[in-house]
C-alpha cells in the first residue's frame, strides 16, 4: 500500500521547475438583465489572469493562439461579433506578442427578436478558450450561462460598469473627431489631432493572410499627428482573401487609453503588378 501511494506521488508530481498550472478566472454578466422584444443588450465576459502570465488577443502577434469566445443563444436571440478590450504588446523571446496581462474584457452584442414572448427567460451560454503562457503554456477554457429575461429594459448593470473601469473598448475610427485615413497601394496614413493620452500613437495590426507591414512612422506637429504604416500584399499567400488593413489605432501607453478599430479593404492590385508573390 505504501509503495502504491509512493508510486502515485512520484508519477503525479510536477518536475521541480515546472510552474504550477495557472488558473484564469472567467466571469460573465449581462449589460442589462432584461431586454424587450426587438431590443438589444450585451453580454460581458471578463477574464482575470494570474500575475506574471498572459493570454492572447484575437490576433496573438508573432506567436501564441487567439483567445476565442463561443456564444450559444436560443431561438429569438442572436449574438454579434465580440469586441475585445485594448490589448498590449508583450515582448517575448519568440517575438512581439499581442495580448493581455491582468485582465481582458469582451462585450458581445445581443439582439432580441421582436416576436419573443415577454416574460420568457432565455439562457445565453458563453464558452471561452485561451492559451496562457509564461515560461510554459497551457490551454484553458471555461463555460457559463447567463439568464436574460424578456421584458422592460432593466438598465445598465453595475457589475459590467465596474468591470469597464480602467478598460479601453475600441470604437470605430470614423468616430474619432477630425481624423482622416488614407489608403494607397503601399501605405496607410492616418492624420488627426492628438488626444489627451499624449504623443504615443501606434497601429496594432490584425493579421490578414498575405498582408505584411513595414516599420510604421509617426510625426507630430502643432498638436496633430501623422502615422504612416507601409505594407505589402503577397497575393500568392492571401488564400483568396482580399487585401485589407485591419487592426487598432492606439493612443497613449496604457490599456486604459483610447483605441480605435480600423478595417479598410484595399483595391485589389492588378495581376501583373511587380513584386506580388507568384
Amino acid at each position, binding site marked *: 500500500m505504501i509503495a502504491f501511494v509512493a508510486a502515485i506521488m512520484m508519477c503525479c508530481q510536477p518536475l521541480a521547475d515546472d510552474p504550477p498550472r495557472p488558473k484564469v478566472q472567467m466571469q460573465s454578466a449581462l449589460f442589462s438583465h432584461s431586454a424587450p422584444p426587438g431590443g438589444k443588450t450585451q453580454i460581458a465576459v471578463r477574464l482575470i489572469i494570474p500575475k506574471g502570465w498572459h493570454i492572447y488577443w484575437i490576433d496573438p502577434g508573432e*506567436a501564441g493562439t487567439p483567445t476565442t469566445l463561443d456564444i450559444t443563444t436560443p431561438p429569438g436571440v442572436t449574438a454579434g461579433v465580440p469586441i475585445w478590450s485594448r490589448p498590449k504588446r508583450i515582448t517575448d523571446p519568440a517575438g512581439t506578442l499581442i495580448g493581455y496581462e491582468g485582465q481582458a474584457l469582451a462585450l458581445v452584442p445581443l439582439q432580441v427578436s421582436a416576436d419573443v414572448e415577454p416574460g420568457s427567460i432565455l439562457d445565453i451560454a458563453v464558452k471561452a478558450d485561451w492559451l496562457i503562457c509564461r515560461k510554459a503554456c497551457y490551454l484553458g477554457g471555461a463555460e457559463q450561462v447567463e439568464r436574460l429575461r424578456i421584458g422592460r429594459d432593466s438598465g445598465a448593470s453595475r457589475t459590467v460598469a465596474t468591470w469597464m473601469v480602467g478598460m479601453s473598448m475600441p470604437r470605430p475610427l470614423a468616430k474619432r473627431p477630425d481624423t482622416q485615413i488614407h489608403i494607397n497601394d503601399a501605405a496607410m496614413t492616418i492624420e488627426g489631432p492628438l488626444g489627451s493620452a499624449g504623443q504615443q500613437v501606434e497601429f496594432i495590426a490584425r493579421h490578414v*493572410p498575405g498582408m505584411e507591414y513595414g516599420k510604421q512612422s509617426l510625426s507630430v506637429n502643432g498638436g496633430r499627428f501623422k502615422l504612416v504604416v507601409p505594407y505589402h500584399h503577397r497575393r500568392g499567400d492571401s488564400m483568396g482573401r482580399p487585401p485589407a488593413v485591419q487592426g487598432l489605432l492606439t493612443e497613449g501607453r496604457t490599456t486604459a487609453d483610447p483605441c480605435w478599430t480600423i478595417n479598410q479593404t484595399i483595391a485589389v492590385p492588378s495581376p501583373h503588378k511587380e513584386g506580388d508573390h507568384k
Partner: protein
Amino acid sequence: MIKHFFAWGAALVIASAAAAQPRLNPPPPAKAGAAVGKAAPAFTLTDIDGKTHNLSDYTGKVVVLEWFNAGCPWSGKKSPRSVHATGRVKNLVSEAKKAQPEIIYLLIDSSANRDKETVIKENKAARDEFGIKQPILIDHDGKVGKAYGAKTTPHMFVIGPDGKLMYAGAFGERQVKKGDKDDNFVINAINKMKAGEPVEPAQTRPWGCGVKYN
C-alpha cells in the same frame, strides 16, 4: 517591388528621425529569419539518440522541419489540440510520402526554459507516448531556430531538393472540426513542388506556443 518597398520604408524612417519627432514605442520588430526562395540556413544538430544531422546530408531530397516542444499543448504535449497527440503529424508524413517517398522529416526543439538533459528526457517520453518515428534534434542554444526565424511550436519549413526554402509558416488550419478536411499547408507545398507549380501559399502566419528560447 520588394526592394522598392523596403527602401521606401527606410526613407520614411529616416525622414521621421530627421524631423526629431516622437518615435513609436516600442517599434515593430524587424523581420528576421530564413527567406522563402533563398537557401535554407545550414545546420548541424544532434538528435536525442546522439546521432548528428547535417542539412547538407539531405541535398537532393525534400526536407520538412517541424519546431517541436514536448511541453506545448499544440505540439508534443498530450492535449486535444496537439498535432502529435491527434495524429495530424502522422497523417502529414503519410501523405507527404505519397508525393515524395524519400522525404526527410525532422523535429527540432529549441527550448531552453529547461536544462538540456530534461528537454531530451521529455522528448524521449513524448516520442514513446505518441509513437514519433522521426528524429528529434536538439537546438538548445536556439541558434538554428533563430536562423530560421522559428516562432512557434509547431512552425513548419519545407526545403526543396536544391536546398531552397519553399514554405515557411503554419502547420495547417489551427483547428480542424471532426469530418472536415485537414488543409495542410506543408502537404500543399510538397504537392505543388512535385507538380512543378509555384508554392502558394509560401508563407503563412504560424500558430502555437512561442518557442522557449530562454
